[in-house]
Every structure is written in C-alpha cells, then in structure tokens.
C-alpha cells in the first residue's frame, strides 16, 4: 500500500491499518490473454449492416447497384438524355455562330450573292422565310419595268 494511504488509514483507524488487504480475486486462466480478440469479434458481429457497408469500397458498392436491371436501365436512359441535351445545345450554338457571321456580311454583298445564285432559291422560301430580306430589296422604279410586261 502507498505510504500516504497507509498513514492516512493509520490515523483514522490503527486497527484497520494492521489488517492485511484481502487477496486479489481469482480470474479464469487465459482470461486476459484472449480478451482483445474476443471483444473485436463481438464488435464486428454487433455492427449494423449499414456500418459494415460503409467499410466496403465505393466501386464495389456502385457495381452492385448496376447488377440490378431497373437501376441499369434508368441510368442508361439518363445517359442518353444527357447526350441528346449536349448535342442539341451544340447545334444551337453552331447556328448562333452562323447567324452572327451572316449579320456581318454587307447588305450589297448579300444581294449580289442572291442575284447571282437566284436559280438556287425556291421562290416560296424567298417570299415566306426571308421576308425581312425581301423587304430590304429596293422597289423597282416603274421606268425599270419593261413596257412589254
């Protein structure tokens, strides 16, 4: 017994300080030797399924999901939608670039191009879809119209 504690006990009860301390209780053989291993087994066995899953790799978890047909099909549809969205947005962007470039072309240049390639245009298209362009055509003077017409 520590001296400090022995002295204190003697001061309170000299009778008790003379009594030998009871022996340390007996423990089954090998009890302490295998204790840690037993505890770790118990802890593992008591872990909830979600705790056990968290220790698995993320790849194996994702792979497990893809083995389910419904999830795989859903993912496929989603991927297809994403690809289509990307294609459409690219097409729109391309068209925007063409519109910008067209806007920079000089009006006279444009009209001379149409004049020289007029045979390539369908009249209906020129009338319906390019009304703003047609409106920009200078109205011919009556003098320019041949009398024969």
């Amino acid at each position, binding site marked *: *017994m*520590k001296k400090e*504690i022995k002295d204190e*006990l003697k001061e*309170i*009860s000299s*009778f*008790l300080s003379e*009594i*030998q*301390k*009871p*022996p*340390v*209780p*007996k*423990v*089954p053989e090998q*009890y*302490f030797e295998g*204790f*840690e291993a037993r*505890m*770790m087994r*118990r*802890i593992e066995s*008591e872990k909830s399924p979600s705790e056990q899953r968290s220790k698995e790799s993320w790849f194996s978890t994702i792979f497990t999901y893809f083995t389910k047909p419904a999830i795989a099909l859903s993912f496929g549809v989603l991927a297809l939608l994403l690809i289509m969205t990307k294609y459409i947005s690219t097409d729109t962007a391309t068209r925007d670039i063409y519109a910008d470039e067209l806007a920079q072309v000089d009006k006279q240049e444009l009209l001379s191009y149409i004049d020289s390639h007029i045979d390539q245009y369908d009249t209906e298209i020129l009338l319906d879809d390019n009304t703003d362009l047609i409106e920009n055509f200078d109205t011919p003077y009556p003098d320019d119209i041949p009398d024969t017409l």
Partner: protein
Amino acid sequence: MAEVKFSEDHEILRLLRNQDTSDKGFRLLMGTYKERLYYHIRQMVGNHEDADDVLQNVFIKVYRNVQNFQEKSSLFTWLYRIATNEALNFLNSNKTKQTVALDEVAFNITNNGSEEFQDENEIQMKLLQAVNILPDKQKQVFNLRYNEEMSYEEISQILETSVGALKASYHHAVKKIESYIKGTI
C-alpha cells in the same frame, strides 16, 4: 497497479482518431486498461461472470463513443467513470446478486491458506462483509482509495465529487468497517 503514462493515453487517442488505425488504437486501449477496469468492476459486482459482462459492455460503449471524448478529463478517468456507472447500473438491475457475489469472495478467502491464517482470513472476510453493507457512495470511495490506491484528485474526477466530501466519506467508511469487524469477532 502500474501507473499509465500520459504519453500512452496520447498515443491511444491518436490511433483511435484516425479511421485507418482506430482498431489498433482500440486494441491498445483494451490492453492498457482491461485489468485495472476488470478488478475495479469485480470489486463492485463480486463475481467473474458479471464482471466480464460489465467490462465487455464498458468497452462496447467506449468503442462507440470514443470519437466524442473531448479530453476534458484524462482517458483513465473517463474509462473509470464509465466502468463505475455500468457496474452501478448492473447492481441496480440485479439487486439480489450482491449477496451471491459476497459469498463467492468469502469462499476464496476461507480457502486461501492453512489454519495459522484462519484468524487473518476471518478478519478479511469480515472486512469484505463490512464493505458490502456500506452505502453505495462510501463503498465506491473506500474501494478506490483502499483497494485501488487512487489519489483523492483522481477519485474526485471519477465520481464527480469534491475532495473534501470524499475525505469525509472515506473517514466514515473506515470507521464503520472498524466498528463492524470489532463488533462481530
């Protein structure tokens, strides 16, 4: 019982707080404290089977909550506090077992030596009986001071009681034990 160095506690906590080494840290924690905690619990519950059950429950709780340990007290104090609470909860839910526990300890003492030690053995048995009938608080203080030889500061942190109150409890416990033994021999 050997003192546990602060550096050892520090190493245990460092390992426990890293997910990759937490199991290693927990094994080190058990290896360092299992015997001290076992005997502390055994003194309270009295027999090996119950002490083993309580000790395992203590370590399960420690494993699940060690991430919440904020080092406001030492690891040693925290573990003793959990062990003390678990043992008290066990005793409260198994009140009738306390008599059986004392019988087992008494059996160990009376079969411990030859005739020349019988008087000493009898006194030791009386001492255990006297401790067993002490109020819970006095019993805890007496066991931690007399059997586990802890300082009042350590006991104060474990039982969350002032040093002055602990000294008074220990004094009363010793006087009651002395009176019980003298009155029964």
